């Protein structure tokens, strides 16, 4: 990075660290922070929409749809995350490849499962075997987003379902008395009011999601915990220009600060959101706001 980095052994402490902290592996470490933040930014809205769909399905008056919604919530919430992550991602990946195999290679006669091996024709591989490494990484990132969204969507569905039921029934009856259809009542009366009931549960989920990102490594994505472990490990002078003893404690301490800072910022934002949503609501929070204005 800097011109004086050619011979790190001869450098003073400050310059040594400025070289060490800007070498190639550290860039990968910093990049992994971006990865985690992007994952959160993409997963949160997707999981919320999964949750919303799940909650709507669970409330449906059509029985198969309602069973589907309730089944989704119950099954995903019941299965341990780690089992879900290990099993589901491989199954999803193999499912995609199996479908592509059926479409793209109809005249392939060898069995797909040979003992332990899962074999599809090379055209059906996802991503293609010849694709550059970044395509593979993007693909596993995409699998990670889907998996996280399904898991957290189920929890969000349960929270939203509860939020929808918490809206005072009198509100819905009044809407009906005004002649609103079921759909109008849902979108104009129920949905705008339910967020304030759902937000405490959703904010919990968000914080759990932040802490669940190290599960990424199970999916083959090199996340911040992987790099902290890799970079902090003992390095001997034969294999690096920057030998150092076991520094994992410092790297993990840095992660601790990062996670704590991130949750603190989230709390502040969520608190503001809560105030915003409470305006004009028939809750204690809304009541307090009303008194502030009149006083």
């Amino acid at each position, binding site marked *: 990075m800097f011109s004086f980095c050619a011979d790190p052994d001869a450098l003073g402490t400050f310059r040594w660290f400025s070289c060490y902290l800007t070498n190639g592996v550290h860039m990968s470490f910093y990049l992994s922070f971006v990865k985690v933040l992007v994952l959160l930014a993409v997963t949160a809205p997707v999981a919320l929409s999964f949750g919303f769909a799940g909650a709507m399905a669970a409330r449906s008056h059509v029985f198969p749809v309602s069973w589907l919604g309730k089944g989704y919530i119950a099954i995903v919430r019941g299965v341990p995350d780690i089992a879900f992550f290990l099993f589901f991602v491989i199954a999803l990946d193999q499912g995609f490849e199996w479908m592509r195999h059926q479409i793209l290679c109809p005249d392939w006669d060898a069995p797909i499962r040979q003992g332990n091996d899962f074999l599809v024709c090379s055209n059906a591989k996802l991503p293609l075997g010849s694709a550059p490494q970044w395509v593979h990484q993007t693909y596993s990132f995409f699998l990670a987003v889907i998996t996280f969204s399904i898991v957290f969507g189920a929890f969000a569905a349960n929270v939203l379902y509860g939020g929808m039921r918490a809206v005072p029934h009198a509100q819905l009856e009044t809407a009906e008395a005004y002649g609103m259809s079921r759909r109008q009542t849902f979108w104009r009366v129920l949905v705008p009011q339910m967020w304030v009931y759902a937000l405490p549960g959703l904010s919990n989920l968000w914080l759990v999601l932040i802490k669940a990102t190290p599960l990424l490594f199970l999916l083959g994505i090199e996340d911040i915990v992987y790099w902290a472990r890799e970079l902090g490990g003992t390095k001997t002078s*034969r294999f690096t220009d920057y030998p150092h003893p076991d520094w994992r404690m410092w790297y993990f301490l840095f992660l601790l600060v990062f996670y704590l800072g991130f949750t603190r910022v989230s709390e502040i934002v969520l608190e503001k959101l809560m105030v915003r949503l409470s305006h004009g609501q028939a809750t204690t929070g809304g009541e307090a706001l009303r008194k502030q204005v009149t006083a």
Partner: protein
Amino acid sequence: MKKLILTTAALALSAGMAMADTVRMGTEGAYPPYNFINDAGEVDGFEREVGDELCTRAGLTCEWVKNDWDSIIPNLVSGNYDTIIAGMSITPERDEVIDFTQDYFPPAASAYVAASADADIEDVVAAQTATLQAGFVADSGATLVEFATPEETIAAVRNGEASAVFADKDFLVPIVEESNGELMFVGEDVALGSGIGVGVRESDGELKGKLDEAITSMKADGSLTALIKKWFGEGAVTYGEDGSVVTN
């Protein structure tokens, strides 16, 4: 329209051919000198050089992929990459699940490292999960503590959780040398396994054949021996021209 279909078919075919030539090489990247991540963030080490040379000789385009040791075999059989080249010794247990090429590194010595010369290697011994060494410790009557990464096995000895660590000697040598006398070899070296080979899927006979051929040619012209000496020192066990193991 016909032309379009023909060109598409031709494209698909040529793409298929190009694909068959790209081989994804799975490694752990945490076991110097066999494989590690260098300062630039790339896979480096003895196996990187051997792997690249094998690919050149076999006419393959190769791409390196990092994977955790724990899940390195499951990800091979499910097709996430095509070879394992990660210091994996050939054992009958692994051979039931995957196939190995011939060895590209002779059976290596494993050794005990402890924080004091009088450490009891029958007591609590650390080893990496799912390795030959872990199996050996379990059979030796000592209490085995397993860790996911090699780094953690060393840390366990430093902080007293284990009285010794048992691992490949070539991995331990640089660590002992730079520990300022805090760590030392104890007990006798143990020869384990039947050499290190490239792991491939059992159904991938063609790739196995190509790699075997390339390894044979590297053994015959002495280039494999040169690489072993470069990464493991002059005293390392190498190969003769006929592929036999030579002690130096």
